[in-house]
């Protein structure tokens, strides 16, 4: 009698054991952990900074040599610093500029005269090779330069190499205001 009873009970116990053990492992133990992920994003962003002085104007003064009427060869203006410029990702810097045009003189200039002055605008400090734009050139392949990493620093904008549009043999027409514009653009590139 007894051996038979035991043989009945033991298989039942063995059959239950794995189920009980499984439930304990899967549901609760003496410690419990939870994992959390904290996530956030930072969008690609560029800021070109703020011109340091005189409202971002290069004042070149009188453009011509008053004895000859030809463009002065010593035209100079201090560089402008765009301070605190940054891009939070890879970036390109590009410079565009327009020739200084006589603002009040109308029509085509007479023979021997010119109503525009060309120059080279450059932006340095951001890339190994400064971005530069010659207003007298038909193409400006160096006007856009790339940078592979996020960067912050000052951008120095300068003007140089002034020349009379049409050639050095021409004289700029008299005008109260010659005006050209330089645009420096920082772009984030993914």
């Amino acid at each position, binding site marked *: 009698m007894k051996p038979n009873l035991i043989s009945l009970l033991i298989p039942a116990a063995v059959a239950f054991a794995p189920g009980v053990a499984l439930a304990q492992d899967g549901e609760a133990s*003496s410690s419990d952990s939870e994992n959390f992920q904290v996530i956030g994003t930072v969008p690609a962003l560029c800021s070109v900074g703020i011109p340091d002085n005189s409202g971002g104007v290069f004042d070149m003064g009188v453009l011509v040599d008053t004895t000859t009427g030809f463009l002065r060869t010593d035209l100079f203006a201090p560089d402008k610093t765009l301070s605190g410029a940054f891009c939070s990702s890879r970036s390109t810097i590009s410079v565009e500029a327009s020739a200084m045009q006589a603002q009040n003189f109308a029509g085509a200039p007479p023979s021997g005269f010119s109503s525009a002055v060309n120059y080279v605008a450059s932006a340095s400090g951001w890339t190994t090779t400064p971005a530069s734009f010659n207003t007298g050139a038909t193409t400006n392949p160096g006007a856009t330069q790339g940078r592979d990493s996020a960067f912050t620093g000052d951008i120095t904008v300068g003007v140089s190499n002034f020349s009379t549009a049409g050639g050095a043999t021409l004289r700029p027409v008299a005008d109260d205001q010659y005006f050209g514009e330089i645009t420096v653009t920082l772009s984030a590139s993914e």
Partner: protein
Amino acid sequence: MKPIPSILALALLLSPAQLLAQSAGESDEGEVQVIGTVTPICVLGEPSDSIIDLGTMIDLSGPRVGRIASIAPRTVTMPNSFCNYSNTMISINAGALVEQGGAPVNTGFSRAVNYSVSVTPWATSEAQLQTSAAADGSGAPGTANSSSQPLPQISNLTMELSGFTAPSDALLVAGDYSGLIVVTLGPSIED
């Protein structure tokens, strides 16, 4: 099939003996012990969130453009967390949010965002941790433990993340940031 009849046979055999005992006197006493065990367990309540999304972490305009914005504290609740035994603690292991691209950073930039995380209330001294990654994202995750809770405890635990800062308040590099927090409720190491 064969064992079943043998049980019946046993029952039949016992019955006369029981009848015999009952008829022995006016009263009789027996002791029966009922025993069982309760396994020591700790359970963290179902978290209200498992991903804490801070969204865009920088100011997009104004004087702090490109730098970390004022990010409101975030909370995650784990209601009815409990341990049914004594001397337990909460342990937090957490790392800073780090930009996942991994490229080196130039001076003035950071690819890490540090924060403070706490899980309360559990014990006299709560688990609280401040991550401390460097601007380049380096720095191992930190661990902080609460003091030991001397009694079995049930608590609506709240995890709070606050004080989001960039190392040196640098500009943040563009990209996706993530950090991992592991909260563990278990036996105190003081045991």
